[in-house]
């Protein structure tokens, strides 16, 4: 059905949803800190896919979001880069103190 019809916004959203879930599961299961951070990138990317799809005039000429979708996506990319930089610095700091990147070892504070 996909190959004979025109691709609708929903298919892009579906890709975004899959990326989001993959990222979330990645964050939940990975034991390597860097793996968790990669999960964060996937999650943000999934959300960004939504913004692009909603804002796309190619997919939906009557769509009202328009340029805002792309603008928000741009800001998200910048914020994600900033967040990744800080998270990585914190991860390296953790590595320096604990000599491990295994998140399961971060268990001295039990909540």
């Amino acid at each position, binding site marked *: 059905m996909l190959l004979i019809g025109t691709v609708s916004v929903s298919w892009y959203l579906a890709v975004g949803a899959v990326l989001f879930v993959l990222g979330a599961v990645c964050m939940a299961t990975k034991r390597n800190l860097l793996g968790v951070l990669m999960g*964060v990138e996937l999650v943000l990317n999934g959300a960004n896919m939504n913004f692009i799809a909603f804002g796309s005039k190619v997919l939906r000429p009557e769509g009202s979001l328009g340029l805002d979708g792309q603008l928000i996506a741009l800001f998200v990319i910048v914020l994600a880069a900033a967040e990744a930089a800080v998270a990585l610095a914190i991860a390296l*700091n953790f590595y320096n103190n604990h000599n491990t990147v295994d998140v399961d070892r971060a268990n001295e504070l039990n909540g």
Partner: protein
Amino acid sequence: MEPTTDFYQLIDALKADSANSLGLFMPEVTLCVFIALFLAVRLITTKLDLFWVALAGAVVGLISSNPLQLCSGAVESEEMFTGLLVHDGLTVAVRSILMLFLVLFLIFTKISGVPDKEDGADVYSLIFGSTLGMCLMTSANHLLIVFLAIEMAGVPSYVLAGLIKGRKRGSEAALKYAIYGAGAAGVMLYGISLLVGLAGTAHLPTMALQLAEIIPAAGLGEQAVLCLAAVMIAVGIAFKLSAVPFHFWAPDVFHGACAEVNAFLSVASKAAALALLLRLAVGLGSVPLNEVEIPQILEVQHESIMSEAAPTQLVSLEDQVADDKSAEPAVVEETADAPANDTEAEPAADDSDEEPVAEGAAEETIDDEAQAAALATRLAIKQAHDEALSPVRNFIGLLIAFFAVVTATFGNLAAYGQTNIKRLLAYSTIAHAGYMMMSIAPLMMTLGTDHAGAEQAASALIQYIVVYVFLNLGAFSIIAFLRNYVGSEEIEDYSGMVKSRPSLVICLALIFFSLVGLPPLSGFLGKFAIFASLADGYSDTGSMALLILLLAGGINTAISLFYYLGVIKTMIMGEPNEEHHLGDRPVGDMEMTYVILITIPTVFLIVCWQWVAGFADEAVKNFIS
């Protein structure tokens, strides 16, 4: 239809708008300038203690946020920066509270000695950067700004949690905070994307208009998307508020970070998150009056009526509006044709003045009547919109009520059995977030139907925040000072403390009693305001949820009494622990003065409670239209 704007008009509008907005944006500009100044000063000299620069920055920020303008009457609600931010009483109030907190907090860090001179520049930049994000949170009017502000407030505080390097627990706290925070922000962003996609805009008032159009006709799929988006956004804010079940980071981070950072996280971050929650809930649940435009069909008649100068016919105009109310979606579609000349950059608040001018035909002699009629029309349209949005309000109200009950109850129950004072206060913070969220439920239930009730609920929240700033800052500063003396944050090591450091213990006891909510301390007044708004909301709407909230609040207050009392009992009745009292040093003058000053509002706020209540009332006056 011809395009009504050209490029140069857009530029002129931008210039005017930016100049106007910058004037209202001074506290944030101050923060930005001082962040740059921290770096610049250190380039020139390393001798100057940057604390004084930071303190100057915070004081300038406090002055420029001008809390006194609330005393001289309500602040008009107007949009800044082409609708990205909004400046109203709530902005002024919460921003002032944040800046006041910043001043007190900086003095506290100076006295307690964390950060040291060498780290000062970095740490103060982070604190200012985070505060900047919080200021944006309080004035956000656009979902991009919501996300941006949460990131700006959050990311520097991840670093702050690991402030003291080389400590295993600190780095673990920072790591947990960063990872959970990033996850929550990601979920929230996804929710925002769904909401933005459905409404076709990220600008909150426009979004409310669009939702009012969409919701009556929404199918199952759209409703599911809306609920999903609301829940996902709630996850992000619940994380910021450390609301159960997204609280798990709080005890660990509070335990691992130093008490100074805890004070910052538990007060500033909570206050800003509550203001943001208030903004989102009200922004999505009702259409602001000055966003409503008169549909063109009505306007034509409006004009003709006006030119005949027959006030009696106004009645028929209103009938016309009432008719249109039934065919509500049609009205909204007509809105598309309204002469919205300055869609781009003009603050929407000006619309009310401009409409008669835009029509061109309105005679000056009947200007007042024209305006009155226009106002009546817009009120009627707004009512119709608000009616359409009532499912949104109910959903948000129930969602927040659920979070509030669970959070308060869990926080209070989990506080039992804590042996570490910082963990205990972390759970206490969680419980207090629950109490504060309670006030938003009656707000949502009465919004759109009972204006006074909604204002009362919002005002109660502001009052509680004012009280809470002093309480938690006081509690954490005493803990930090005691740590410097005793070298422990375990409750059992506080045993018999009253003999060696009576002043600190008495102040801590007062603050704890106030956190419980015992009269006549300030905590009682805050709690009373919230419970009163719950009770009034219940008697107005008869909503069971509000009654449950009220009961839960009462029971929780009783529960919380015992663990606070336990700590006080240990400190006063317990046997002094000799090991920690070796060569008792007297409490330093600075510490003593600070603690007493910070406790004074707790005890004496009741004397000037009228002033606080008035401040809060003015703060919310133009926020809910």
